[in-house]
């Protein structure tokens, strides 16, 4: 059965029951205006809903009933037993119709004009001096029908008598045909009916009178045996009576106060905790007679938990119920044609969650319709169908529910967002220039941003997308946005199914236990001296190499200011200890003495002398947590198992500690705090927004210059901070100066079986003879180079905006990193120093200030991407990097536009030649010049490149040639234009 219908039935049956009671009360206290008002309201609601659902027969009966009530309420009529009777009659008729509606899911055929006529007559006649007896109504009706047939009176009487008991009879009879005490009544009624029906047959007005009255007796009588007299109608009605055996819909669902459910949930939560506790005790006992019953208890509790959770589950459609109306009104108001498509409305989620997302969802749908969709004329002009659509889609995925809100409107306009940002002071023009479209779009989630250029009555209510995001994140959800200008916008919301009971990982730090919600835990890494994972430190900041990436780490101990326990602080194994001699003796195998030496030599943070002795045995765990797109590692001492925990809010005193999202009682009865990964990320200075793109290795990650980039800050010769993108640095090493040799006027050191040239930042500087020297190792393919620095200071996540360009060789320019003016070192320059064959030594600056052109760089080598990007940005280009031709094509599909494309030739998948061919022959970019970038350049290659469609061909390592070529290509373009 339709949800709406069954809900209507439940609700209306409730109202009817209430009406029954209240009408009777009214009869006793005719002057109770409040009561009367309530009765009128109930009747009115029934009428209204019937009308809304398209049930005309019910509506007309209810309307007639309401009329009478209206007169009574307005004081035109007095509350008399007769008026109450006639209203009750209409209620009975409604109830009867409802029963049939329930059985057949359609309003039964038939005609109530008699009852309605009587009700109307009553309403009109009520003002006339009313006859006091029950007959009055009947008489009036009869007068109207033009017949004073006494049978009707008899019937009326029979009806009046039979009504109550007959109802009982109906149920009794359904169960047991020989419900003896009631039978005579029913029989009587049926007989009365047939007696009445026949003579009245040719008098239509009076006939209808028959319909309501006998209906119930009929239903009751029908199942009873030996009722040959039952009219054909009776059998039809009997059908209506049948579902009663199974219990009606109205009886199958019952309304329960939410508090009761909440309470139940709390009790079950407690039960779950107690069960956990019991299981914990059981685990510690090898053999126990409690094992079997506990196991059973375990199952029962689990099922109970599921059952109670199910009572809290509601279809998401409930939250959407208002949307069609909102959309309709919006369409009307804004003169748009909007089609609202709702998929997966039956997807269920926790009531609490539902409540929390209701408003954000409504807001977003409203936004889509208001700001997203264009007016019909614009749509037609853009070649789209006149009617825009807003599509809502909900489905389950894992332990989450995914809600998508998509529209096919104009999409987010980067230009407008930029303007807004500048107007509202959210970002500077320069910042914005360097950002990718995606990053710019993220601004709509920032506080103080409203996309509505003109505030209409529907938008601009002070609820921005920032509130939406906050609300969603509050319940552990995430929101993502994809938008293509001209094609539409799509939001994807991911939220956990329930909040009450979550699975959590129990960890220990400084002898205290904490719970981390499993949802945000990606993996666990065990780090110790003997595994491949070692924690390295950069000026005391711990980092971990995990699958070719540096994962920022936070130590829970430091974060929570837990005093270290006697055992030992975590020991830091650093590859800085490596000597140049051989890779065999690299950090992993570093002997304790080496470690000790290293500790003294390097950083103060590592000088926890006590730790050193146990360096070998020391192991600790890193919980890798993901918050939005940001991942980080949390260093803990130990990891226990996972446990189902019931999240309880912390005391108000502790609310302002953002590192905790709640507390809970574990199976062993102890209280633990629940860590909030969002809060931890926030304290580490990282906001969990999907904008940073530290994930350089990920598939077709595009890196704009405005992304926050991890920069390694160091001192070279003096104390002015210098920096280089961390991604460029392969390793941080510390070399033993006694191993440094000199070859051809250049310092070299044997490193991992190769000779690694050492480059000094300052020309003519001499290396010391002895001691240790920190070195940044740059490596690409099989070449490595060491850049000698004085000390490594820090790793800073920041946007790299070159604010001052420089002509100084070896520097790209100056940027503000970590709030300090920092020289950004041009790694390629020093590569030149190390390998003369790699780079043309001559340097002339080709920085063209006038160019602010969008440039797409396609190269599979992260090294080159990282090297060229800052270089090109410094020359005034807006650089987008992708790691494959396929990714580039995706950007093309996505509608990005560039002034020039630089592409590598040798790439996995589609190679440069194929890419060029594809771009120049059939794509939106066919007019965009493409410059080939290759490590080898022989004439044949050149020719092949030109054939493929490359505009120019540059050797990969020739920085100046590249800049010149770009300059020329673009000025050619300008000249042509």
């Amino acid at each position, binding site marked *: 059965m339709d949800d709406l219908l069954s809900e209507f039935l439940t609700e209306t049956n409730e109202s009817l029951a209430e009406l029954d009671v209240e009408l009777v009360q009214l009869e006793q206290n005719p002057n109770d205006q409040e009561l009367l008002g309530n009765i009128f309201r109930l009747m009115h609601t029934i009428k209204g809903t019937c009308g809304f659902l398209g049930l005309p027969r019910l509506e007309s009966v209810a309307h007639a009933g309401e009329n009478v009530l209206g007169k009574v309420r307005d004081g035109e009529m007095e509350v008399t037993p007769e008026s109450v009777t006639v209203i009750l009659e209409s209620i009975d008729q409604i109830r009867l119709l409802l029963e049939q509606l329930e059985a057949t899911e359609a309003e039964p055929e038939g005609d109530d004009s008699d009852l309605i006529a009587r009700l109307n007559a009553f309403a009109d006649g009520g003002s006339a001096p009313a006859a006091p007896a029950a007959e009055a109504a009947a008489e009036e009706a009869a007068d109207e029908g033009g017949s004073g047939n006494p049978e009707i009176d008899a019937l009326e009487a029979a009806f009046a008598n039979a009504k109550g008991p007959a109802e009982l009879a109906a149920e009794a009879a359904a169960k047991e045909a020989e419900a003896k005490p009631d039978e005579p009544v029913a029989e009587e009624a049926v007989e009365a009916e047939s007696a009445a029906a026949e003579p009245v047959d040719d008098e239509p007005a009076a006939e209808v009178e028959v319909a309501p009255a006998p209906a119930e007796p009929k239903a009751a009588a029908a199942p009873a045996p030996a009722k040959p007299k039952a009219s054909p109608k009776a059998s039809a009605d009997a059908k209506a009576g049948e579902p009663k055996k199974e219990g009606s819909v109205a009886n199958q669902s019952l309304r329960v106060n939410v508090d009761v459910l909440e309470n139940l949930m709390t009790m079950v939560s*407690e039960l779950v*905790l*107690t069960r956990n506790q019991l299981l914990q005790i059981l685990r510690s006992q090898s053999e126990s007679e409690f094992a079997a019953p506990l196991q059973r208890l375990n199952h029962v509790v689990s099922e109970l938990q599921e059952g109670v959770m199910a009572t809290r589950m509601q279809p998401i459609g409930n939250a959407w119920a208002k949307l069609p109306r909102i959309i309709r009104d919006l369409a009307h108001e804004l003169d748009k044609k909007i089609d609202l498509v709702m998929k997966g409305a039956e997807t269920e989620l926790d009531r609490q969650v539902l409540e929390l997302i209701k408003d954000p969802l409504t807001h977003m749908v409203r936004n889509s319709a208001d700001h997203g969709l264009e007016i019909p004329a614009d749509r037609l002009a853009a070649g789209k169908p006149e009617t825009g659509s807003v599509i809502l889609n909900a489905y389950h995925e894992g332990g989450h529910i995914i809600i998508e809100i998509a529209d096919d409107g104009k999409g987010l306009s980067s230009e407008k967002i930029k303007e807004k940002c500048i107007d509202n002071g959210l970002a500077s023009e320069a910042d914005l220039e360097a950002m990718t479209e995606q990053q710019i779009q993220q601004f709509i989630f920032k506080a103080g941003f409203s996309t509505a250029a003109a505030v209409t009555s529907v938008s601009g209510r002070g609820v921005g997308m920032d509130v939406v995001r906050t609300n969603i994140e509050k319940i552990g959800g995430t929101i993502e946005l994809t938008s293509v200008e001209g094609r539409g916008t799509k939001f994807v919301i991911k939220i956990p199914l329930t909040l009450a009971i979550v699975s959590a990982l129990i960890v220990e730090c400084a002898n*205290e*236990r904490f719970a981390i919600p499993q949802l945000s835990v990606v993996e666990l890494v065990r780090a110790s001296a003997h595994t491949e994972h070692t924690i390295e430190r950069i000026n005391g900041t711990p980092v971990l190499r995990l699958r070719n990436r540096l994962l920022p780490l936070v130590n829970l101990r430091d974060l*929570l*200011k*837990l005093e270290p326990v006697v055992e030992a602080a975590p020991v830091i194994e650093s590859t800085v200890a490596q000597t140049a001699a051989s890779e065999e003796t690299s950090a992993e195998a570093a002997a304790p003495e080496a470690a000790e030496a290293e500790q003294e030599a390097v950083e103060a943070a590592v000088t926890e002398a006590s730790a050193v002795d146990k360096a070998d045995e020391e192991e600790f765990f890193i919980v890798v947590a993901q918050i939005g797109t940001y991942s980080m590692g949390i260093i803990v001492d130990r990891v226990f198992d996972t446990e189902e925990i019931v999240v*309880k809010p912390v*005391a*108000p*005193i*502790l609310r*302002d*500690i953002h*590192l*905790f999202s709640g*507390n*809970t*009682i574990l199976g062993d*009865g*102890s*209280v*633990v*705090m629940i860590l909030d990964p969002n809060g931890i990320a926030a304290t580490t200075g990282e906001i969990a927004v999907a904008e940073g793109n530290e994930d350089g290795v990920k598939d077709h990650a595009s890196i704009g210059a405005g992304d926050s980039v991890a920069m390694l800050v160091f001192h070279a010769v003096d104390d002015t901070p210098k920096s280089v993108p961390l991604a460029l640095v392969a390793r941080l090493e510390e070399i033993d100066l006694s191993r440094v040799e000199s070859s051809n006027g250049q310092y070299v050191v044997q490193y991992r079986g190769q000779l690694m040239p050492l480059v000094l930042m300052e020309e003519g500087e001499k290396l010391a003879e002895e001691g240790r020297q920190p070195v940044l190792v740059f490596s690409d393919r099989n070449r490595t180079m060491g850049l000698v620095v004085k000390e490594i200071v820090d790793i800073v996540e920041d946007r790299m905006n070159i604010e001052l360009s420089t002509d100084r060789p070896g520097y790209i320019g100056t940027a503000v990193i970590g709030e300090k003016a920092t020289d950004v070192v041009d790694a390629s320059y020093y590569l030149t120093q190390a390998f003369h064959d790699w780079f043309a030594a001559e340097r002339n600056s080709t920085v063209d200030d006038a160019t602010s052109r969008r440039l797409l760089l396609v190269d599979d080598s992260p090294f080159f991407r990282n090297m060229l990007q800052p270089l090109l940005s410094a020359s005034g280009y807006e650089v987008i990097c992708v790691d494959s031709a396929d990714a580039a094509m995706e950007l093309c599909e996505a509608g990005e536009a560039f002034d020039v494309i630089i592409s590598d030739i040798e790439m996995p998948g589609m190679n440069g030649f194929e890419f060029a061919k594809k771009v120049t022959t059939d794509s939106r970019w066919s007019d965009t010049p493409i410059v080939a970038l290759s490590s080898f350049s022989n004439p044949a290659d050149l020719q092949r490149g030109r054939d493929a469609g490359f505009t120019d061909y540059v050797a990969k390592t020739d920085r100046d040639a590249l800049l010149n070529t770009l300059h020329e290509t673009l000025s050619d373009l300008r000249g042509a234009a």
Partner: protein
Amino acid sequence: MSNESQDSGEHDEHSVLANAFSDAEDFVTFVIADQLFGIPVLKVQDVLSAYNITRIPLAPPEIAGSLNLRGRIVTAMDVRLRLGLPPKEGRDSMSIVAEHDGELYSLMVDSVGEVLALKSGDYERNPPTLDPKFRDYSVGIYRLDAKLLVVLDVNRLLDYSREQAA
């Protein structure tokens, strides 16, 4: 009980305040740093001896941690520290559990004494010379035969929002 004759001007104000406590009220008494304190018995839910407390990092120093009292999480506060007294040596303390704003708090004190019915006649306002912390959390003094009893205001003791607002 002894000093019946009171300053009349003082007396008016005193009776107004005393009315709030009705004629005789029962107080749970406890001792912190040899000072007798009391809180209305109706405020007290439970009295605990030493309990296993989980520390809460980053919490204010007087918050000793949280504990599990029959399935409810109770926040433990060291009243000593809250009153600005030096921490106690040795861990054997007792706690009085009180409810505030729907949350349970365990107030750690040195020792819990008996329940006393105190007459309003023995009530007196805080002497103005009292230590500000004491004055802040105390609603008055009862003159007992041998000692003075400081009535602590549990609500003020546990209300941190007031301080944050200030």
